[in-house]
Protein backbone atom coordinates (compact mmCIF):
# COMPACT_ATOMS: atom_id res chain seq x y z
CA UNK A 1 0.00 0.00 0.00
CA UNK A 2 1.33 3.43 -0.88
CA UNK A 3 1.62 6.13 1.76
CA UNK A 4 -1.09 8.22 0.12
CA UNK A 5 -3.54 5.31 0.01
CA UNK A 6 -2.88 4.66 3.67
CA UNK A 7 -3.55 8.30 4.52
CA UNK A 8 -6.83 8.23 2.62
CA UNK A 9 -7.96 5.08 4.44
CA UNK A 10 -6.91 6.48 7.79
CA UNK A 11 -8.76 9.73 7.11
CA UNK A 12 -11.90 7.93 6.02
CA UNK A 13 -11.84 5.69 9.09
CA UNK A 14 -11.34 8.66 11.40
CA UNK A 15 -14.22 10.51 9.73
CA UNK A 16 -16.54 7.55 10.24
CA UNK A 17 -15.52 7.23 13.88
CA UNK A 18 -16.00 10.97 14.42
CA UNK A 19 -19.47 10.74 12.91
CA UNK A 20 -20.28 7.87 15.27
CA UNK A 21 -19.02 9.96 18.19
CA UNK A 22 -21.37 12.81 17.28
CA UNK A 23 -24.29 10.53 16.51
CA UNK A 24 -24.96 9.81 20.19
CA UNK A 25 -26.08 13.41 20.71
CA UNK A 26 -28.78 13.28 18.05
CA UNK A 27 -30.08 9.73 18.21
CA UNK A 28 -33.18 8.92 20.31
CA UNK A 29 -32.55 6.49 23.14
CA UNK A 30 -33.83 3.35 21.41
CA UNK A 31 -31.47 3.96 18.51
CA UNK A 32 -28.53 4.60 20.81
CA UNK A 33 -29.07 1.09 22.15
CA UNK A 34 -29.35 -0.31 18.65
CA UNK A 35 -26.25 1.54 17.46
CA UNK A 36 -24.34 0.16 20.45
CA UNK A 37 -25.33 -3.35 19.44
CA UNK A 38 -24.33 -2.60 15.86
CA UNK A 39 -20.88 -1.42 16.87
CA UNK A 40 -20.21 -4.49 19.01
CA UNK A 41 -21.39 -6.78 16.22
CA UNK A 42 -19.22 -4.76 13.83
CA UNK A 43 -16.18 -5.62 15.95
CA UNK A 44 -17.15 -9.29 15.65
CA UNK A 45 -17.52 -8.90 11.90
CA UNK A 46 -14.24 -7.00 11.55
CA UNK A 47 -12.63 -10.02 13.21
CA UNK A 48 -14.39 -12.44 10.88
CA UNK A 49 -13.52 -10.35 7.85
CA UNK A 50 -9.85 -10.19 8.87
CA UNK A 51 -9.76 -13.90 8.10
CA UNK A 52 -12.12 -14.08 5.12
CA UNK A 53 -11.25 -10.79 3.46
CA UNK A 54 -7.50 -10.60 3.91
CA UNK A 55 -6.25 -14.20 3.90
CA UNK A 56 -9.22 -15.73 2.09
CA UNK A 57 -10.24 -18.26 4.75
CA UNK A 58 -13.99 -18.77 5.13
CA UNK A 59 -14.76 -19.97 8.64
CA UNK A 60 -18.26 -21.22 9.39
CA UNK A 61 -17.57 -21.37 13.11
CA UNK A 62 -16.73 -17.92 14.34
CA UNK A 63 -19.60 -17.98 16.81
CA UNK A 64 -17.33 -20.19 18.92
CA UNK A 65 -14.87 -17.32 19.43
CA UNK A 66 -17.62 -14.79 20.05
CA UNK A 67 -19.16 -17.13 22.61
CA UNK A 68 -15.76 -17.91 24.11
CA UNK A 69 -15.20 -14.23 24.86
CA UNK A 70 -18.78 -13.81 26.02
CA UNK A 71 -18.67 -16.69 28.48
CA UNK A 72 -15.08 -16.15 29.61
CA UNK A 73 -15.91 -12.58 30.58
CA UNK A 74 -19.47 -13.20 31.77
CA UNK A 75 -18.81 -16.32 33.83
CA UNK A 76 -15.78 -14.86 35.55
CA UNK A 77 -17.96 -11.95 36.63
CA UNK A 78 -20.98 -14.10 37.50
CA UNK A 79 -19.29 -16.95 39.34
CA UNK A 80 -16.03 -15.46 40.57
CA UNK A 81 -16.88 -11.80 40.99
CA UNK A 82 -14.09 -10.56 38.73
CA UNK A 83 -13.85 -6.84 38.11
CA UNK A 84 -14.88 -5.72 34.63
CA UNK A 85 -11.36 -5.02 33.27
CA UNK A 86 -10.11 -8.33 34.68
CA UNK A 87 -13.03 -10.17 33.08
CA UNK A 88 -12.32 -8.50 29.76
CA UNK A 89 -8.65 -9.46 30.07
CA UNK A 90 -9.62 -13.07 30.81
CA UNK A 91 -11.81 -13.11 27.73
CA UNK A 92 -8.97 -11.86 25.51
CA UNK A 93 -6.61 -14.52 26.82
CA UNK A 94 -9.22 -17.26 26.53
CA UNK A 95 -10.24 -16.43 22.97
CA UNK A 96 -6.63 -15.99 21.86
CA UNK A 97 -5.77 -19.39 23.34
CA UNK A 98 -8.83 -21.06 21.83
CA UNK A 99 -8.18 -19.61 18.38
CA UNK A 100 -4.54 -20.66 18.58
CA UNK A 101 -5.52 -24.27 19.26
CA UNK A 102 -8.44 -24.38 16.81
CA UNK A 103 -6.39 -22.58 14.15
CA UNK A 104 -3.43 -24.93 14.52
CA UNK A 105 -5.77 -27.87 13.89
CA UNK A 106 -8.15 -26.49 11.26
CA UNK A 107 -5.50 -24.77 9.15
CA UNK A 108 -4.21 -28.19 8.18
CA UNK A 109 -7.27 -28.30 5.93
CA UNK A 110 -8.20 -26.06 3.03
CA UNK A 111 -11.27 -24.68 1.31
CA UNK A 112 -14.38 -26.82 1.79
CA UNK A 113 -12.82 -29.01 4.49
CA UNK A 114 -11.81 -25.89 6.39
CA UNK A 115 -15.39 -24.62 6.29
CA UNK A 116 -16.82 -27.93 7.50
CA UNK A 117 -14.22 -28.45 10.21
CA UNK A 118 -14.68 -24.95 11.65
CA UNK A 119 -18.44 -25.52 11.58
CA UNK A 120 -18.04 -28.78 13.50
CA UNK A 121 -15.76 -27.31 16.15
CA UNK A 122 -18.25 -24.50 16.64
CA UNK A 123 -21.01 -27.07 17.03
CA UNK A 124 -18.93 -28.78 19.71
CA UNK A 125 -18.65 -25.40 21.43
CA UNK A 126 -22.41 -24.88 21.26
CA UNK A 127 -23.06 -28.35 22.69
CA UNK A 128 -20.52 -27.65 25.42
CA UNK A 129 -22.47 -24.56 26.47
CA UNK A 130 -25.59 -26.72 26.75
CA UNK A 131 -23.81 -29.59 28.47
CA UNK A 132 -22.19 -27.48 31.18
CA UNK A 133 -25.57 -26.06 32.11
CA UNK A 134 -24.59 -25.95 35.78
CA UNK A 135 -22.26 -23.10 34.87
CA UNK A 136 -24.00 -21.55 31.88
CA UNK A 137 -27.64 -22.32 32.61
CA UNK A 138 -27.80 -23.72 29.05
CA UNK A 139 -30.38 -22.46 26.60
CA UNK A 140 -32.03 -20.17 29.11
CA UNK A 141 -28.82 -18.35 29.92
CA UNK A 142 -27.76 -16.04 32.72
CA UNK A 143 -28.35 -12.39 33.46
CA UNK A 144 -25.54 -10.48 35.10
CA UNK A 145 -26.68 -8.65 38.25
CA UNK A 146 -26.63 -4.85 38.04
CA UNK A 147 -24.06 -4.65 40.83
CA UNK A 148 -21.57 -6.64 38.74
CA UNK A 149 -21.82 -4.19 35.89
CA UNK A 150 -20.36 -1.26 37.80
CA UNK A 151 -16.86 -0.39 38.73
CA UNK A 152 -15.14 2.36 40.66
CA UNK A 153 -13.13 4.73 38.55
CA UNK A 154 -11.32 7.01 40.94
CA UNK A 155 -14.01 9.04 42.69
CA UNK A 156 -16.67 8.09 40.12
CA UNK A 157 -18.63 4.95 39.46
CA UNK A 158 -18.65 3.66 35.94
CA UNK A 159 -21.97 2.00 35.21
CA UNK A 160 -21.77 0.09 31.95
CA UNK A 161 -25.49 -0.53 31.98
CA UNK A 162 -25.88 3.17 31.27
CA UNK A 163 -26.82 3.75 27.63
CA UNK A 164 -24.38 6.55 26.86
CA UNK A 165 -21.49 4.90 28.70
CA UNK A 166 -21.84 1.66 26.84
CA UNK A 167 -22.26 3.44 23.52
CA UNK A 168 -18.86 5.03 24.03
CA UNK A 169 -17.25 1.82 25.24
CA UNK A 170 -18.47 0.08 22.09
CA UNK A 171 -17.17 2.97 20.00
CA UNK A 172 -13.73 2.76 21.60
CA UNK A 173 -13.64 -0.98 20.98
CA UNK A 174 -14.64 -0.49 17.34
CA UNK A 175 -12.01 2.21 16.89
CA UNK A 176 -9.38 -0.04 18.45
CA UNK A 177 -10.21 -3.00 16.22
CA UNK A 178 -10.31 -0.92 13.03
CA UNK A 179 -7.03 0.77 14.00
CA UNK A 180 -5.40 -2.56 14.78
CA UNK A 181 -6.38 -4.04 11.43
CA UNK A 182 -5.44 -0.89 9.52
CA UNK A 183 -1.93 -0.86 10.93
CA UNK A 184 -1.57 -4.60 10.51
CA UNK A 185 -2.44 -4.30 6.84
CA UNK A 186 -0.11 -1.38 6.33
CA UNK A 187 3.00 -3.37 7.12
CA UNK A 188 4.77 -6.39 5.65
CA UNK A 189 2.43 -8.79 7.46
CA UNK A 190 -0.58 -7.32 5.72
CA UNK A 191 1.16 -7.58 2.39
CA UNK A 192 1.97 -11.23 3.01
CA UNK A 193 -1.60 -11.93 4.16
CA UNK A 194 -3.16 -10.64 0.95
CA UNK A 195 -0.46 -12.40 -1.05
CA UNK A 196 -1.60 -15.68 0.54
CA UNK A 197 -5.20 -14.84 -0.26
CA UNK A 198 -4.38 -14.17 -3.91
CA UNK A 199 -1.95 -17.04 -4.50
CA UNK A 200 -0.95 -19.29 -1.65
CA UNK A 201 1.43 -21.55 -3.58
CA UNK A 202 3.35 -18.62 -5.02
CA UNK A 203 3.70 -17.00 -1.62
CA UNK A 204 5.19 -20.12 -0.12
CA UNK A 205 7.67 -20.32 -3.00
CA UNK A 206 8.74 -16.76 -2.27
CA UNK A 207 9.99 -17.97 1.10
CA UNK A 208 7.13 -17.20 3.45
CA UNK A 209 5.86 -19.53 6.15
CA UNK A 210 2.28 -19.55 4.94
CA UNK A 211 0.95 -21.67 7.79
CA UNK A 212 2.38 -19.36 10.44
CA UNK A 213 1.03 -16.28 8.67
CA UNK A 214 -2.44 -17.82 8.41
CA UNK A 215 -2.36 -18.90 12.05
CA UNK A 216 -1.37 -15.39 13.11
CA UNK A 217 -4.37 -13.91 11.29
CA UNK A 218 -6.59 -16.67 12.66
CA UNK A 219 -5.61 -15.75 16.21
CA UNK A 220 -6.08 -12.04 15.53
CA UNK A 221 -9.49 -12.79 14.03
CA UNK A 222 -10.55 -15.09 16.85
CA UNK A 223 -9.40 -12.66 19.53
CA UNK A 224 -11.25 -9.73 17.96
CA UNK A 225 -14.38 -11.89 17.81
CA UNK A 226 -13.83 -12.86 21.44
CA UNK A 227 -13.42 -9.24 22.46
CA UNK A 228 -16.71 -8.47 20.74
CA UNK A 229 -18.38 -11.35 22.57
CA UNK A 230 -17.02 -10.16 25.92
CA UNK A 231 -18.25 -6.63 25.25
CA UNK A 232 -21.67 -7.95 24.24
CA UNK A 233 -22.00 -10.04 27.38
CA UNK A 234 -20.81 -7.33 29.78
CA UNK A 235 -22.53 -4.35 28.16
CA UNK A 236 -25.92 -6.02 27.77
CA UNK A 237 -25.65 -8.26 30.80
CA UNK A 238 -26.93 -11.47 29.25
CA UNK A 239 -25.16 -14.74 28.41
CA UNK A 240 -27.07 -17.30 26.32
CA UNK A 241 -26.35 -20.38 24.24
CA UNK A 242 -27.73 -18.71 21.09
CA UNK A 243 -24.53 -16.69 20.85
CA UNK A 244 -22.63 -19.93 20.29
CA UNK A 245 -25.01 -21.24 17.64
CA UNK A 246 -24.49 -21.73 13.92
CA UNK A 247 -26.77 -18.78 13.26
CA UNK A 248 -24.23 -16.39 14.80
CA UNK A 249 -21.44 -17.68 12.59
CA UNK A 250 -23.67 -17.17 9.58
CA UNK A 251 -24.57 -13.63 10.60
CA UNK A 252 -20.90 -12.64 10.62
CA UNK A 253 -20.62 -14.08 7.12
CA UNK A 254 -23.76 -12.29 5.99
CA UNK A 255 -22.67 -8.90 7.34
CA UNK A 256 -19.26 -9.30 5.71
CA UNK A 257 -20.61 -10.34 2.32
CA UNK A 258 -23.09 -7.48 2.31
CA UNK A 259 -20.59 -4.78 3.28
CA UNK A 260 -17.79 -6.24 1.18
CA UNK A 261 -15.27 -8.91 2.15
CA UNK A 262 -11.75 -7.55 2.34
CA UNK A 263 -12.75 -3.97 3.03
CA UNK A 264 -12.01 -2.25 6.31
CA UNK A 265 -15.36 -0.52 6.78
CA UNK A 266 -17.49 -3.10 4.95
CA UNK A 267 -18.31 -5.03 8.13
CA UNK A 268 -19.69 -1.89 9.79
CA UNK A 269 -21.84 -1.07 6.76
CA UNK A 270 -23.08 -4.66 6.51
CA UNK A 271 -23.98 -4.79 10.19
CA UNK A 272 -25.79 -1.44 10.17
CA UNK A 273 -27.92 -2.36 7.17
CA UNK A 274 -28.73 -5.91 8.22
CA UNK A 275 -29.41 -5.20 11.89
CA UNK A 276 -31.67 -2.27 10.98
CA UNK A 277 -33.51 -4.48 8.52
CA UNK A 278 -33.86 -7.43 10.89
CA UNK A 279 -35.15 -5.04 13.53
CA UNK A 280 -37.90 -3.80 11.19
CA UNK A 281 -38.68 -7.31 9.96
CA UNK A 282 -38.97 -8.91 13.36
CA UNK A 283 -41.84 -6.51 14.10
CA UNK A 284 -43.66 -8.14 11.19
CA UNK A 285 -42.77 -11.80 11.34
CA UNK A 286 -40.97 -14.37 13.42
CA UNK A 287 -39.65 -15.92 10.21
CA UNK A 288 -37.22 -13.13 9.39
CA UNK A 289 -34.52 -15.72 8.75
CA UNK A 290 -36.32 -16.31 5.49
CA UNK A 291 -35.10 -12.90 4.39
CA UNK A 292 -31.59 -13.67 5.58
CA UNK A 293 -31.62 -16.78 3.41
CA UNK A 294 -32.78 -14.83 0.38
CA UNK A 295 -30.18 -12.11 0.92
CA UNK A 296 -27.39 -14.67 1.27
CA UNK A 297 -28.30 -16.19 -2.08
CA UNK A 298 -28.79 -12.84 -3.80
CA UNK A 299 -25.40 -11.63 -2.55
CA UNK A 300 -23.53 -14.73 -3.59
CA UNK A 301 -25.22 -14.82 -7.00
CA UNK A 302 -25.21 -11.19 -8.09
CA UNK A 303 -23.25 -9.12 -5.63
CA UNK A 304 -20.33 -11.21 -4.40
CA UNK A 305 -18.05 -8.22 -3.80
CA UNK A 306 -20.53 -6.46 -1.51
CA UNK A 307 -21.13 -2.74 -1.22
CA UNK A 308 -17.64 -1.42 -0.50
CA UNK A 309 -16.02 -4.07 -2.69
CA UNK A 310 -18.07 -2.85 -5.65
CA UNK A 311 -17.30 0.78 -4.86
CA UNK A 312 -13.61 -0.07 -4.71
CA UNK A 313 -13.78 -1.86 -8.04
CA UNK A 314 -15.58 0.96 -9.80
CA UNK A 315 -14.47 4.18 -8.21
CA UNK A 316 -12.02 3.97 -5.35
CA UNK A 317 -9.19 1.46 -5.90
CA UNK A 318 -7.33 2.84 -2.88
CA UNK A 319 -9.96 1.53 -0.45
CA UNK A 320 -8.50 -0.96 1.96
Amino acid sequence: MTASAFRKNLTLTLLVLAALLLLQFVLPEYYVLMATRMMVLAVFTVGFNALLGYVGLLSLGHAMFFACGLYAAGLSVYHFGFSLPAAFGVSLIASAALSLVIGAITLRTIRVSFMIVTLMFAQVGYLAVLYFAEWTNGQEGLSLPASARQMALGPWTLNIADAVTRYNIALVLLAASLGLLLFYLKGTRGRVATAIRDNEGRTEMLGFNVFAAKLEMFVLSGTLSGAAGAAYGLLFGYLGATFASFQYSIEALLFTLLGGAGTLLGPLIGVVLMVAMIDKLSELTSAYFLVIGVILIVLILWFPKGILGTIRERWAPWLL
Partner: protein
Amino acid sequence: MGLGPYLLLATLEGLVQAAVLCITAAGLSLVFGVMRVVNVAHGEFVMLGAVIAWYAASLLTGHPALGFVVALIISPLIVGAIAALSERLILKRLDYNPEATIVATIGLLYIIQQSVLILYGPDARPVDPPFYYTIRLPWFGYSAYKLFVIGAAILIMGLIWFVLQKTRAGLIMRATQFDRETAQAFGIPVDKVSAYVFALGAGLAAIAGILVVPIQQAHYLMGTDPLLLSFIVVIIGGLGSMSGTVVAAILIGLSDGILSMMFSPTLAKMVSTLLVALVLVFRPNGLFGKAAR
Protein backbone atom coordinates in the same frame (compact mmCIF):
# COMPACT_ATOMS: atom_id res chain seq x y z
CA MET B 1 -34.73 -56.01 32.28
CA GLY B 2 -31.31 -57.66 32.29
CA LEU B 3 -28.26 -56.38 30.47
CA GLY B 4 -28.69 -58.75 27.48
CA PRO B 5 -32.22 -57.66 26.52
CA TYR B 6 -31.27 -54.07 27.26
CA LEU B 7 -28.41 -54.29 24.78
CA LEU B 8 -30.71 -55.98 22.26
CA LEU B 9 -33.15 -53.09 22.54
CA ALA B 10 -30.33 -50.56 22.19
CA THR B 11 -29.01 -52.42 19.14
CA LEU B 12 -32.44 -52.49 17.50
CA GLU B 13 -32.94 -48.76 18.14
CA GLY B 14 -29.44 -48.15 16.79
CA LEU B 15 -30.19 -50.15 13.65
CA VAL B 16 -33.36 -48.16 13.01
CA GLN B 17 -31.39 -44.95 13.31
CA ALA B 18 -28.64 -46.39 11.11
CA ALA B 19 -31.22 -47.31 8.48
CA VAL B 20 -32.65 -43.80 8.22
CA LEU B 21 -29.18 -42.29 8.40
CA CYS B 22 -27.97 -44.55 5.62
CA ILE B 23 -30.58 -43.22 3.20
CA THR B 24 -30.04 -39.60 4.18
CA ALA B 25 -26.26 -39.85 4.00
CA ALA B 26 -26.40 -41.71 0.70
CA GLY B 27 -28.14 -38.68 -0.79
CA LEU B 28 -25.57 -36.28 0.63
CA SER B 29 -22.71 -38.50 -0.49
CA LEU B 30 -24.09 -38.82 -4.01
CA VAL B 31 -24.42 -35.06 -4.37
CA PHE B 32 -20.94 -34.49 -3.00
CA GLY B 33 -19.40 -37.27 -5.04
CA VAL B 34 -20.87 -36.36 -8.40
CA MET B 35 -21.24 -32.59 -8.09
CA ARG B 36 -18.56 -31.75 -5.49
CA VAL B 37 -21.22 -29.71 -3.73
CA VAL B 38 -21.57 -29.77 0.04
CA ASN B 39 -25.30 -29.37 0.47
CA VAL B 40 -25.95 -27.73 3.83
CA ALA B 41 -29.69 -27.69 3.07
CA HIS B 42 -29.80 -31.51 2.92
CA GLY B 43 -31.43 -31.83 6.35
CA GLU B 44 -34.22 -29.50 5.23
CA PHE B 45 -35.11 -31.97 2.50
CA VAL B 46 -35.59 -34.61 5.21
CA MET B 47 -37.82 -32.19 7.06
CA LEU B 48 -39.80 -31.38 3.91
CA GLY B 49 -40.34 -35.09 3.30
CA ALA B 50 -41.71 -35.49 6.83
CA VAL B 51 -43.95 -32.41 6.62
CA ILE B 52 -45.39 -33.50 3.28
CA ALA B 53 -46.07 -36.92 4.83
CA TRP B 54 -48.04 -35.17 7.58
CA TYR B 55 -50.11 -33.24 5.00
CA ALA B 56 -50.74 -36.44 3.05
CA ALA B 57 -51.83 -38.27 6.21
CA SER B 58 -54.12 -35.48 7.38
CA LEU B 59 -55.73 -34.86 3.99
CA LEU B 60 -56.37 -38.52 3.24
CA THR B 61 -58.64 -39.85 5.94
CA GLY B 62 -59.12 -43.59 6.12
CA HIS B 63 -56.44 -46.13 6.72
CA PRO B 64 -53.09 -44.55 7.68
CA ALA B 65 -51.32 -46.78 5.17
CA LEU B 66 -53.04 -44.88 2.37
CA GLY B 67 -51.51 -41.54 3.37
CA PHE B 68 -48.17 -43.21 3.89
CA VAL B 69 -48.09 -44.76 0.43
CA VAL B 70 -49.23 -41.54 -1.22
CA ALA B 71 -46.55 -39.64 0.68
CA LEU B 72 -43.94 -42.15 -0.42
CA ILE B 73 -44.85 -41.40 -4.01
CA ILE B 74 -45.45 -37.67 -4.09
CA SER B 75 -43.06 -36.44 -1.44
CA PRO B 76 -39.80 -37.43 -3.19
CA LEU B 77 -41.22 -35.99 -6.41
CA ILE B 78 -42.09 -32.63 -4.87
CA VAL B 79 -38.85 -32.39 -2.92
CA GLY B 80 -36.86 -33.53 -5.96
CA ALA B 81 -38.56 -30.87 -8.06
CA ILE B 82 -37.75 -28.17 -5.50
CA ALA B 83 -34.15 -29.37 -5.45
CA ALA B 84 -33.86 -29.46 -9.26
CA LEU B 85 -35.29 -25.98 -9.44
CA SER B 86 -32.83 -24.59 -6.92
CA GLU B 87 -30.02 -26.39 -8.72
CA ARG B 88 -30.97 -24.67 -11.99
CA LEU B 89 -31.59 -21.26 -10.44
CA ILE B 90 -28.70 -21.12 -8.00
CA LEU B 91 -26.01 -23.81 -8.02
CA LYS B 92 -25.60 -23.90 -11.79
CA ARG B 93 -25.21 -20.12 -11.93
CA LEU B 94 -22.47 -20.36 -9.33
CA ASP B 95 -20.72 -22.81 -11.62
CA TYR B 96 -20.66 -25.27 -8.68
CA ASN B 97 -17.90 -23.27 -7.01
CA PRO B 98 -17.47 -25.22 -3.75
CA GLU B 99 -17.32 -22.26 -1.34
CA ALA B 100 -20.05 -20.26 -3.02
CA THR B 101 -22.40 -23.26 -3.14
CA ILE B 102 -21.98 -23.82 0.60
CA VAL B 103 -23.02 -20.23 1.27
CA ALA B 104 -25.92 -20.58 -1.17
CA THR B 105 -27.17 -23.81 0.38
CA ILE B 106 -27.04 -22.15 3.81
CA GLY B 107 -29.37 -19.55 2.30
CA LEU B 108 -31.54 -22.35 0.93
CA LEU B 109 -31.62 -23.95 4.39
CA TYR B 110 -33.08 -20.79 5.91
CA ILE B 111 -35.54 -20.28 3.05
CA ILE B 112 -36.97 -23.80 3.27
CA GLN B 113 -37.00 -23.93 7.06
CA GLN B 114 -38.62 -20.53 7.51
CA SER B 115 -41.17 -21.08 4.72
CA VAL B 116 -42.28 -24.23 6.49
CA LEU B 117 -42.46 -22.26 9.74
CA ILE B 118 -44.81 -19.79 8.06
CA LEU B 119 -46.97 -22.33 6.22
CA TYR B 120 -46.97 -25.25 8.65
CA GLY B 121 -46.34 -23.56 11.96
CA PRO B 122 -44.01 -24.17 14.90
CA ASP B 123 -45.73 -27.29 16.27
CA ALA B 124 -44.41 -30.83 16.21
CA ARG B 125 -47.15 -33.04 14.75
CA PRO B 126 -47.35 -36.83 14.90
CA VAL B 127 -48.10 -39.06 11.94
CA ASP B 128 -49.57 -42.54 12.39
CA PRO B 129 -47.47 -45.43 11.14
CA PRO B 130 -49.01 -47.26 8.17
CA PHE B 131 -49.64 -50.26 10.39
CA TYR B 132 -49.68 -51.04 14.10
CA TYR B 133 -48.16 -54.33 15.02
CA THR B 134 -46.04 -55.15 17.99
CA ILE B 135 -43.70 -58.07 17.90
CA ARG B 136 -43.74 -59.71 21.30
CA LEU B 137 -40.29 -60.69 22.40
CA PRO B 138 -39.82 -62.50 25.74
CA TRP B 139 -38.45 -59.29 27.36
CA PHE B 140 -40.23 -56.44 25.59
CA GLY B 141 -42.53 -55.65 22.72
CA TYR B 142 -41.09 -54.07 19.63
CA SER B 143 -42.81 -52.07 16.92
CA ALA B 144 -42.91 -53.96 13.64
CA TYR B 145 -42.92 -50.62 11.82
CA LYS B 146 -39.38 -49.98 13.04
CA LEU B 147 -38.29 -53.33 11.61
CA PHE B 148 -40.04 -52.35 8.39
CA VAL B 149 -37.87 -49.18 8.30
CA ILE B 150 -34.74 -51.32 8.50
CA GLY B 151 -36.02 -53.52 5.69
CA ALA B 152 -36.94 -50.50 3.57
CA ALA B 153 -33.46 -49.06 4.02
CA ILE B 154 -31.85 -52.31 2.89
CA LEU B 155 -34.11 -52.33 -0.15
CA ILE B 156 -33.35 -48.71 -1.04
CA MET B 157 -29.61 -49.10 -0.60
CA GLY B 158 -29.80 -52.18 -2.82
CA LEU B 159 -31.64 -50.13 -5.43
CA ILE B 160 -29.03 -47.37 -5.28
CA TRP B 161 -26.30 -49.94 -5.68
CA PHE B 162 -28.09 -51.48 -8.65
CA VAL B 163 -28.66 -48.13 -10.35
CA LEU B 164 -25.09 -47.00 -9.83
CA GLN B 165 -23.44 -50.24 -10.89
CA LYS B 166 -25.77 -51.82 -13.44
CA THR B 167 -27.58 -49.10 -15.34
CA ARG B 168 -26.57 -46.57 -17.92
CA ALA B 169 -27.66 -43.71 -15.66
CA GLY B 170 -25.37 -45.07 -12.97
CA LEU B 171 -22.49 -45.33 -15.40
CA ILE B 172 -22.99 -41.70 -16.37
CA MET B 173 -23.01 -40.65 -12.73
CA ARG B 174 -19.89 -42.62 -11.95
CA ALA B 175 -18.12 -41.22 -15.01
CA THR B 176 -19.03 -37.68 -13.97
CA GLN B 177 -17.84 -38.36 -10.44
CA PHE B 178 -14.55 -39.76 -11.68
CA ASP B 179 -13.65 -36.95 -14.01
CA ARG B 180 -16.07 -34.20 -14.91
CA GLU B 181 -14.15 -32.78 -17.85
CA THR B 182 -13.46 -36.09 -19.53
CA ALA B 183 -17.09 -37.09 -19.09
CA GLN B 184 -18.10 -33.88 -20.83
CA ALA B 185 -15.64 -34.55 -23.64
CA PHE B 186 -17.29 -37.95 -24.15
CA GLY B 187 -20.63 -36.27 -24.70
CA ILE B 188 -22.16 -36.81 -21.27
CA PRO B 189 -24.47 -33.87 -20.53
CA VAL B 190 -22.73 -33.17 -17.23
CA ASP B 191 -24.91 -30.16 -16.69
CA LYS B 192 -28.16 -32.15 -16.75
CA VAL B 193 -26.61 -34.92 -14.69
CA SER B 194 -26.04 -32.38 -11.91
CA ALA B 195 -29.70 -31.38 -11.83
CA TYR B 196 -30.86 -35.01 -11.72
CA VAL B 197 -28.32 -35.96 -9.07
CA PHE B 198 -29.27 -33.02 -6.87
CA ALA B 199 -32.94 -33.98 -7.22
CA LEU B 200 -32.14 -37.63 -6.52
CA GLY B 201 -30.14 -36.73 -3.41
CA ALA B 202 -33.00 -34.57 -2.15
CA GLY B 203 -35.52 -37.30 -2.99
CA LEU B 204 -33.57 -39.78 -0.88
CA ALA B 205 -33.59 -37.31 2.00
CA ALA B 206 -37.35 -36.94 1.60
CA ILE B 207 -37.85 -40.71 1.77
CA ALA B 208 -35.79 -40.80 4.96
CA GLY B 209 -38.06 -38.06 6.31
CA ILE B 210 -41.21 -40.05 5.53
CA LEU B 211 -39.83 -43.21 7.09
CA VAL B 212 -38.81 -41.43 10.27
CA VAL B 213 -41.90 -39.30 10.83
CA PRO B 214 -44.13 -42.01 12.40
CA ILE B 215 -41.35 -42.54 14.94
CA GLN B 216 -40.40 -38.92 15.52
CA GLN B 217 -43.12 -36.34 14.62
CA ALA B 218 -42.80 -33.62 11.98
CA HIS B 219 -41.29 -30.29 13.03
CA TYR B 220 -39.74 -27.42 11.10
CA LEU B 221 -36.43 -27.68 12.94
CA MET B 222 -36.07 -31.47 12.59
CA GLY B 223 -33.53 -31.12 9.74
CA THR B 224 -30.57 -30.15 11.89
CA ASP B 225 -29.77 -33.51 13.44
CA PRO B 226 -29.96 -35.56 10.23
CA LEU B 227 -27.74 -32.96 8.56
CA LEU B 228 -25.03 -33.17 11.19
CA LEU B 229 -25.24 -36.93 11.48
CA SER B 230 -25.05 -37.46 7.74
CA PHE B 231 -22.08 -35.08 7.55
CA ILE B 232 -20.45 -37.25 10.16
CA VAL B 233 -21.27 -40.43 8.26
CA VAL B 234 -20.07 -39.10 4.92
CA ILE B 235 -16.82 -37.84 6.44
CA ILE B 236 -16.09 -41.05 8.36
CA GLY B 237 -17.00 -43.16 5.35
CA GLY B 238 -14.81 -41.13 3.02
CA LEU B 239 -16.25 -38.26 1.01
CA GLY B 240 -18.20 -39.54 -1.96
CA SER B 241 -17.69 -43.24 -1.25
CA MET B 242 -21.00 -45.14 -1.15
CA SER B 243 -19.81 -48.34 0.51
CA GLY B 244 -17.91 -46.32 3.13
CA THR B 245 -21.11 -44.37 3.76
CA VAL B 246 -23.09 -47.54 4.51
CA VAL B 247 -20.49 -48.92 6.90
CA ALA B 248 -20.16 -45.57 8.65
CA ALA B 249 -23.93 -45.13 8.93
CA ILE B 250 -24.27 -48.48 10.68
CA LEU B 251 -21.33 -47.68 12.93
CA ILE B 252 -22.62 -44.22 13.85
CA GLY B 253 -26.24 -45.31 14.13
CA LEU B 254 -25.37 -48.17 16.47
CA SER B 255 -22.86 -46.29 18.58
CA ASP B 256 -25.09 -43.23 18.81
CA GLY B 257 -28.04 -45.35 19.89
CA ILE B 258 -26.01 -47.21 22.49
CA LEU B 259 -24.01 -44.17 23.68
CA SER B 260 -27.16 -42.07 24.04
CA MET B 261 -28.60 -44.71 26.39
CA MET B 262 -25.48 -44.72 28.54
CA PHE B 263 -24.44 -41.06 28.50
CA SER B 264 -26.28 -37.80 28.10
CA PRO B 265 -27.22 -37.31 24.44
CA THR B 266 -25.56 -33.88 24.45
CA LEU B 267 -22.28 -35.33 25.64
CA ALA B 268 -22.49 -38.14 23.09
CA LYS B 269 -23.10 -35.64 20.29
CA MET B 270 -20.33 -33.39 21.52
CA VAL B 271 -17.72 -36.11 21.63
CA SER B 272 -18.72 -37.65 18.31
CA THR B 273 -18.71 -34.27 16.53
CA LEU B 274 -15.28 -33.50 17.96
CA LEU B 275 -13.89 -36.88 16.92
CA VAL B 276 -15.27 -36.52 13.43
CA ALA B 277 -13.81 -33.04 13.00
CA LEU B 278 -10.45 -34.54 13.93
CA VAL B 279 -10.96 -37.38 11.44
CA LEU B 280 -11.58 -34.83 8.70
CA VAL B 281 -8.38 -32.99 9.63
CA PHE B 282 -6.06 -35.94 10.10
CA ARG B 283 -7.65 -38.65 7.91
CA PRO B 284 -9.33 -36.63 5.12
CA ASN B 285 -10.12 -39.77 3.13
CA GLY B 286 -12.20 -41.20 5.94
CA LEU B 287 -11.38 -43.99 8.33
CA PHE B 288 -11.78 -46.63 5.65
CA GLY B 289 -10.53 -44.53 2.74
CA LYS B 290 -7.43 -45.21 0.74
CA ALA B 291 -4.40 -42.96 1.01
CA ALA B 292 -4.30 -39.78 -1.05
CA ARG B 293 -4.66 -40.41 -4.74
